[in-house]
């Protein structure tokens, strides 16, 4: 292995560094898009529509309020479901960590829930409840709850015992203890949990929207299927993907701001 003197390596200008990073980020998508575009030359438009058409369709959805409100509705359903599941999951997680008995009782139930497909919940929700929004919320919560609970449990159990005892030695009041010790130490894992569950929720939400809602990306996708419109199906799918990307990006921003304290090694993994 040869070690190069870092001072001898010409330092790239910040501009070209950014350009290279952007290029690296978009490269995989460029390849997929190119392959699709090539396919669209050989297959009929209703199977592989040209990306130019898809692009205009995406723009159309963006710029028309009546269309874009569907995307917003779906986004709100994802966030509402995640928030609900997170709150309930956090409460259950705390209970599980605090009592072995509750752990033995709840954990198997949650694991059992994890095995139930989203589509089954859709059927149950339609049979059990009235009101589209409530059905959707129920499905969103019940499908992401087990993961959130287990992630909260993992984060709480992984808390450093040494630090916990150190804080305890100052005899904090309960709320203070949560504020100075528990929250900051579980935050990294909670953010990761949100990122993971966001992906799951965005896939479940379109299924949940089949419960008879008259709006949302799931409903629109169903329309495209009935119209046999591949361009539309792609355009609506991309809307949802964009939302997930946007929210992931926001979570990453929070992460970088919240974890400035972390040491960065000059060695990579």
């Amino acid at each position, binding site marked *: 292995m040869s070690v190069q003197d870092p001072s001898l390596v010409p330092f790239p200008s910040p501009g070209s560094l950014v350009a290279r990073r952007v290029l690296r980020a978009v490269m995989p998508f460029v390849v997929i898009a190119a392959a699709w575009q090539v396919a669209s030359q050989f297959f009929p438009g209703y199977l592989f529509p040209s990306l130019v058409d898809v692009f205009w369709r995406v723009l159309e959805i963006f710029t028309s309020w009546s269309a874009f409100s569907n995307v917003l509705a779906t986004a709100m359903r994802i966030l509402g479901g995640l928030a609900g599941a997170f709150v309930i999951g956090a409460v259950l997680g705390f209970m599980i960590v605090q009592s072995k008995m509750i752990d033995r009782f709840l954990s198997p139930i949650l694991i059992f829930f994890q095995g139930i497909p989203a589509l089954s919940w859709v059927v149950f929700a339609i049979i059990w409840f009235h009101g589209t929004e409530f059905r959707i919320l129920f499905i969103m919560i019940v499908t992401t709850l087990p993961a959130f609970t287990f992630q909260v449990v993992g984060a709480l159990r992984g808390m450093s015992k*040494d*630090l916990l*005892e*150190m*804080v*305890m*030695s*100052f*005899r*904090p*009041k309960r709320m*203070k203890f949560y504020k*100075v*010790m528990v929250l*900051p*130490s579980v935050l990294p894992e909670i953010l990761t949990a949100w990122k993971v569950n966001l992906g799951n929720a965005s896939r479940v939400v379109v299924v949940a929207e089949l419960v008879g809602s008259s709006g949302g990306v799931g409903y629109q996708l169903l329309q495209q299927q009935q119209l046999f419109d591949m361009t539309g199906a792609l355009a609506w799918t991309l809307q949802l993907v964009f939302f997930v990307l946007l929210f992931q990006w926001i979570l990453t921003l929070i992460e970088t701001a919240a*974890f*400035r*304290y*972390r*040491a960065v090694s000059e060695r990579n993994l």
Partner: protein
Amino acid sequence: MTAPEIAEEAEIRFENVSKHFGNPAAPFVAVDELDLEIDKGQMVALLGKTGCGKSTMFNMIAGLSAPTSGRVTLMGHDPFKEFDWFRGKIAIVFQNDRLLPWRTAVKNVELGLEMLETTKEERRERAIYWLHKLGLAGHEDDYPHALSGGMRQRVSIARAFATNAELLLCDEPFSALDEITSKRLRMEFARLVRENGKTAVFITHSINEAFDIGDRIVVLKRPAQIAHDIRLDAATSDEEKEAIRRMIHDSLSQ
């Protein structure tokens, strides 16, 4: 005014204390039927070989773990059960620095004060005062990962002193420092404890350190039981000290 004939309540009292770990059927005995009394205002050095149960004793004094049998009392109260009663009364310097990685040096020092009724300004002022006293001026806003081991240890000493608790427990507080700094801080530590009439228990591996600050040296054997209990005062002659030193040395090298 307390009448002199009323015996003062011992600050720390171990009554027949044992601590076992692991399987109760075949337990590991870390502390074995220990009796010990430490008076108010005393500075006690706990000496003993590695693994002899010093930190385990320490955790029981700190109220972080409960004895398997026997009784530990501090100022007449149970440190494990009476959690709130001890708020602001005990300060601990742990064996490893145990700084919160998400807080800067000054915020780490403020931690203990946050549990007490202090204003934000007062907290900050006291934290900075102690950081400066321990030679950390200019590092107030550094995160622990950016400090050296010795600096982190000093932050944790500052954190303990800032609360102005009457009982100080230190588990090898100066072990991560070079000899000269360690000597200086040791002297400073002894002065502060005496001046403020605090009671201090500190664990050490170093016989010199024990002599430097302790007015009482308790040597432990394994499992934690008292091998020697030595009181030093101004009248202790150098020859006596030399003899004690040799005795401790022999007892530690067994």
